[in-house]
């Protein structure tokens, strides 16, 4: 199978969320991912990009922020990388709701950490790296899994 790499740059604004999901859906679909895997990647990209836009860039007062999305299809893995130059932030170190909290009545639920939990649960692998002043959020799924 041929290796396949695509990249696209988006303005870090909430209006870019849908075009970002469209880009990932399109490249994922070309790589033969199933509907569930594509949806899972869209969740991960959407949730983490939302955090980057609102907290990484806007809260830090950085205008004109960008998010680069790279998709790489090689061997058994389809990988999506979100690259941004905002405040260093490792979402995997955020406290996410545990099973006890998820079982609480909805009226008592706290809402924090939900997006990161959804991102983690929706892909096969979620890694984070910080290098050369950039955040890299890396999501992978295995196309041949069902």
């Amino acid at each position, binding site marked *: 199978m041929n290796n396949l790499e695509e990249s696209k740059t988006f303005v870090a604004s*909430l*209006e870019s*969320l*849908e075009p970002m*999901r469209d880009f990932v859906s399109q490249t994922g679909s070309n790589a033969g991912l199933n*509907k*569930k895997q594509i*949806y899972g990647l*869209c*969740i991960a990209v*959407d*949730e983490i990009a*939302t955090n980057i*836009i*609102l907290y990484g860039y806007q809260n830090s007062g950085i205008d004109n922020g960008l998010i680069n999305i790279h998709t790489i299809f090689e061997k058994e893995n389809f990988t999506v990388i979100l690259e941004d130059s905002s405040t260093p932030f490792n979402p995997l170190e955020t406290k996410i*709701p545990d099973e006890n909290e*998820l*079982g*609480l*009545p*909805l*009226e008592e*639920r706290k*809402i924090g950490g*939900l*997006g990161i*939990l*959804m991102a983690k*649960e*929706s892909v096969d692998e979620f890694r984070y790296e910080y290098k050369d002043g950039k955040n890299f959020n890396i999501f992978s799924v295995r196309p041949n899994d069902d």
Partner: protein
Amino acid sequence: MEVTLKLEANLVIITIEGSIDGNTSGELQMQIMGKISESDNVILDLSKVDFISSAGLRVLLMVYRQIKVKNGKVVLVGISEEIKDVMSMTGFINYFQITDSIEDAQNIFKS
């Protein structure tokens, strides 16, 4: 995202079309919360919703809380398998009644 609201006897039927994400959830909230305060029960038709992020779940949580204090019910109609998965992993699925059609949802309030 498109939102249609219909007020029936003590029941508001809300039909949403498109994606509920961080970009659209604020507008959705603004369009529906007023009508929800006028009613005890809510049917949310999500059969034409293709994507819900945690921002969308936050709106569902707000609807649920408003209706719950009035001892009413929130019924979700036509949610996709993928949205069902997300609602399961977050524990949200347990708090809503889910039906395949608006008619089934309306019958819950008739019985």
